């Protein structure tokens, strides 16, 4: 999948809330519970299904944190793959409805 066309959306099956900058996420299907650090939280909050991942990394992550853009992109892709495997994020090469699939 070409990087530029990766779109991410939060699944509607999850519960999520930020606590002191850290995002708590629970998947209702299996009660798995995650917390995200500040950088991951920024990506998660920006996962509206319409903004490409590359744009989120460029405009949100690299703007707010002192990170190397290539490294940030690679880390973001790894993060997205992991959350996608747990059903927390939905990934597509086309825009998605935010908090999809209810």
């Amino acid at each position: 999948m070409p990087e530029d066309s990766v779109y991410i959306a939060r699944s509607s099956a999850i519960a999520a809330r930020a606590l002191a900058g850290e995002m708590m996420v629970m998947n209702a299907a299996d009660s798995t519970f995650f917390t995200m650090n500040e950088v991951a939280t920024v990506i998660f909050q920006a996962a509206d299904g319409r903004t490409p991942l590359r744009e989120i990394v460029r405009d949100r992550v690299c703007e707010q944190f002192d990170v190397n853009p290539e490294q940030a992109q690679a880390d973001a892709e790894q993060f997205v793959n992991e959350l996608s495997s747990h059903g927390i994020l939905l990934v597509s090469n086309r825009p998605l409805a935010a908090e999809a699939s209810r």
Partner: protein
Amino acid sequence: MTLMSEMGQKAFNLGVPIAVHMDVTYRCNERCVHCYLDHDDHGELTTAEIKDVLDQLAEAGVFFLTFSGGEVFMRRDFFEILEHARRLMFNVKIKTNAVMIHEAEARRIRELDVDTIQISVYSHRPEVHDAITKLPHSLERTIKSIRFLRQQGLRVTIANVMMTVNSADHLGVKKLATELGAHYTLDPTITPMMDGDTSVLSLRIPGEELPEIFHNPDLVGSQEEFCAPPKPPSKEDLEGYSCSAGHSYCYISPYGDVFPCVQFPLPTGNIRQQKFLDIWNFSPQMKEVRSIQAKDLTVCSSCSHVSSCSRCPGLAYMEGSMRGPSTADCEKSFYRTGVPTANMLRQGLSKPRTTAPLIQIRPVAVPA
């Protein structure tokens, strides 16, 4: 410490209300003999008001949201409320008698990704369960609903309130829970009625019957651990707090009253008059509840059980003082370990009274 309890501790330390119990109605289709509620509608929050409260709770950082009652499905707008709550990404638990849940309702609950449905079952025998709920065929209907929920793959917890009239049935209910694929919890707590009537306390199982429960590994896990004699309290224990009430948890009534806990009828404000966060952050009553450390407790600070007792500040408040002992918990500590509590010793008792002398304090209105 699990990740979830770590986050719970973080919320506690920061004073974030991570969990809220919200009763959306006190109306009910059952008339349980031990229920502490007045089931008439005295002006419930409207759909719009509840949605506004939910918006405020999300903003305040609430993650775990429990909807209860009364019976939640007595509100025709309950699914609208539930949909709004899930849109705001709360982790939602529903407490219900399930009688009004059919196949379509079970499907909708699953579609909305509700975390858990907790259902009250008092006995595996219809004649006992239905006599407690005073609703004919209620056990049959509740079990049918649990099957619908389980068919949808939903997590169901059967909550078994234990009292004099069903104390022999807990193993039968546990077996029923296993057959239905549900979790099982047992609770021997009976709470005085909201109007101050303490007659329901006669349904509390006698203390003498508690050891049988507390020494049953199927119910309490490791008996050695659960029934261990209390350890001398450390400095940290004495600087600790009773529970999360008012620290990271609170209760909201169907009329918008905010309390530290569902079992702690100290009014702290009303969300029809104030924003939730103003009540949470600035209510003098919330601040007082939050300030009480174990070392401040009038009797319990000198009790050997202080670090391990399940002392409920709400029940203590209903007995007369939120800093005082909760007799029901003193009983539990004694019958769990065999070691008398400071509350018993000061009364010259070698074992708890057979009936607890409860002095009921009625909630008073908070000045606007």
